[in-house]
């Protein structure tokens, strides 16, 4: 029997179970810390030697992490970030094409009615003025809708730039933490709090761009875009993304300096918030803008073809009603603006002022297939625009709901493995506390035994 050995055994218990209490209290304190993975103390019996140490030692206090679930959650965050960004970006289409008064459809209908009034009173200055007023409202409606969409495009480009900046900040943080973790663990220090901070930064990045995470040397992680471009490596540190604006279109693309030259990595970002913003801009928003421009040009061309063939009250022919190269510059032609008598309601200058046939032909533009390459009426083309925009929003919402559900499931699965349960930690706390108390008692017993032996001499 070795009293010293009993003393050492008690001391090892105090160390191991003290660590257990410390880890349990850390876990409880971090119960609400985002990205925190609970730590678990693993005890191991020390090998008994003839005069060896025996007792117990805390083998490790590892973070409880399932790499598969972490990767799944990282991917789910990117999907959710992308889908949410798409919904936020495309909801403008719901507003631009809503059925509230003042929209493009209403403006088309009001203009049509005013042409009917001119056809019923071709010699009336008042009805002609109203018709030009309605034509101006139609132009304003085209311009306002175009402006809504182009402002949204500009905002999306601005948000892409700012999101890229935020990603770069987090990439730099991850690179710094890679170094700090390596230094800490190389000197035997505990680095779980640094790993938790790195996970938090990674959570932000994975919500903005789709990434793959690979374990690197010395506790580091390597972060890559799904397409393979490295964002963070242990050796190279953070390799930032660059948001570049095309001076002609104002559109932002995302690139990265690789081997000394800028490489466009936009295509490697199909989701995450940045991917969602890019998809919304280049997908449904572009389609809506192109559709609106086409409708504006078709409207102008169809009315001009009829109007220029007719005669105004002044007997002049060959004047256009509108000018438009796209929706944003759709306006009343200078030939007729402010000149009600120039509105060509007649088909025969000899039958002025009562000839209303060209006004009726202008009305007929609304029932002819003059839009989308002669396949649709103006109303149908507008309805198609509404359907496409609304369907894009609806699909984005459905994708968002699905992505959120998948992320919730992935979060729960990760939480089930790595999350902190206060009940569980309390049990650990009690267990380690009791063991600590028992170890302390063991030291007392050994001490008492020494006292007993010393007392034998007295």
């Amino acid at each position: 029997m070795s009293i010293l050995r009993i003393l050492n055994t008690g001391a090892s218990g105090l160390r191991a179970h003290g660590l257990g209490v410390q880890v349990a209290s850390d876990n409880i304190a971090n119960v609400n810390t985002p990205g925190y993975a609970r730590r678990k103390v693993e005890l191991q019996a020390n090998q008994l030697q003839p005069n060896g140490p025996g007792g117990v030692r805390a083998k490790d206090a590892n973070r409880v992490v399932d790499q598969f679930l972490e990767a799944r959650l990282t991917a789910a965050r990117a999907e959710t970030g992308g889908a949410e960004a798409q919904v936020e970006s495309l909801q403008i289409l719901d507003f631009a094409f809503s059925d509230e008064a003042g929209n493009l459809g209403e403006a088309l209908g009001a203009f049509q009615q005013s042409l009917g009034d001119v056809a019923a009173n071709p010699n009336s200055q008042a009805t002609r003025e109203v018709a030009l007023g309605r034509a101006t409202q139609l132009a304003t409606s085209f311009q306002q809708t175009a402006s809504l969409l182009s402002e949204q495009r500009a905002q999306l480009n601005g948000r892409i730039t700012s999101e890229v900046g935020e990603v770069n900040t987090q990439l730099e943080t991850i690179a710094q933490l890679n170094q700090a973790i390596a230094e800490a663990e190389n000197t035997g220090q505990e680095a779980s709090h640094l790993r938790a901070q790195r996970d938090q930064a990674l959570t932000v990045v994975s919500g903005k761009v789709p990434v793959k995470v690979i374990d690197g040397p010395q506790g580091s992680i390597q972060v890559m875009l799904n397409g393979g471009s490295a964002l963070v490596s242990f050796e190279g540190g953070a390799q930032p993304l660059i948001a570049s604006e095309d001076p002609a279109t104002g559109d932002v693309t995302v690139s990265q300096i690789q081997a000394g030259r800028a490489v466009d990595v936009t295509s490697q970002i199909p989701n995450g918030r940045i991917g969602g913003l890019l998809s919304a801009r280049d997908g449904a928003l572009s389609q809506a803008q192109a559709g609106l421009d086409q409708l504006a040009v078709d409207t102008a061309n169809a009315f001009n073809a009829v109007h220029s063939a007719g005669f105004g009250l002044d007997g002049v022919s060959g004047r256009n009603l509108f000018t438009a190269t796209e929706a944003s510059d759709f306006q009343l032609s200078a030939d007729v603006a402010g000149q009600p008598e120039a509105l060509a309601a007649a088909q025969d200058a000899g039958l002025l002022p009562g000839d209303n046939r060209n006004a009726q032909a202008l009305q007929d533009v609304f029932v002819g297939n003059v839009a989308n390459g002669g396949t649709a009426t103006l109303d149908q083309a507008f309805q198609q625009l509404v359907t496409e925009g609304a369907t894009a929003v609806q699909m984005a919402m459905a994708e968002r709901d699905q992505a959120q559900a998948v992320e919730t499931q992935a979060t729960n699965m990760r939480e089930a493995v790595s999350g902190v349960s206060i009940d569980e930690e309390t049990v650990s706390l009690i267990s380690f506390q009791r063991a600590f108390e028992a170890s302390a008692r063991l030291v007392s017993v050994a001490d008492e035994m020494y006292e007993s032996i010393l007392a034998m001499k007295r």
Partner: protein
Amino acid sequence: MRVTDNMTFDLMRQNLLRTRAHANEMQEAAQRGRRVLAPSDDPVATATAFGERAKEQRVEGQLRTINVGLGALELLDSSFEQMNDVMTKARELAIQAANDTSDAEAREQIAQEVRAMRDQLINLANVRQGDRFLLAGMQEDQPAFDATGSFQGDDNVRTLEVADGLRIEDSVSASSVFNAPGGVDIFAELEALSVALDANDAAGIQAGVGAMRSGQRQISDGHSRIGSRMESFLVAESSAIRVRDAAVAAQTELLGKETEAAYVDFARAQNAYQEALSIAGQLPLPNLLQQR
């Protein structure tokens, strides 16, 4: 499966947010009486409703045109009714003057009456709607007839669109009434009659009796054509009203929501939110740490 405290709180947060959002949506639906609050709620219904709204607007425009046309025809109807009375009176006077008992003095008086009737008839033929002389054809900005009864307009008759692709004339050709082919020149015949009366020309007066009969028939025929066009406009109007009402009903059907259903759904959504709140109020669940 391990259930952590965060999982419990996340579930509570999600349920509260979801039930609150749904309650808000149902409240808006009830307040606005709408099932479709944004195009993305039902893109096809929204686009179809836009089509129905466009139809409603188009038909509203056609109804306005129909009203203009009916207004013109009502004025013409009234004018022709009065012209018919004038021609009836002119024919009666001609018959009275043709009678052997009328002497030269009486015929002179009748001649004056006939001249007044001719002026009245010219005035009635120059019926106008606002600035438009309805019987002047396309030359509508000037009277159809001058003071001598000479026609100053043209024979074109304007049409109005009363339905898609359907156009109806809102007047009649003046020459087809006052100088109809195979008929008489009414104003010239009235002038001839008054000249014959002044001249105490029995044969001329007798000829005038026949001319007045023809003239009256021409006016009556014109009146009938106006009546027939009014009938067409009225049929078009009732058809347009039906189409418009159907378009309005279709929009309500596509986008609207019955009040009862809207309030039931709102109440249900509110209950769900209150249930979620009530459950949330019971959190946090007691844990072992609190028991120690």
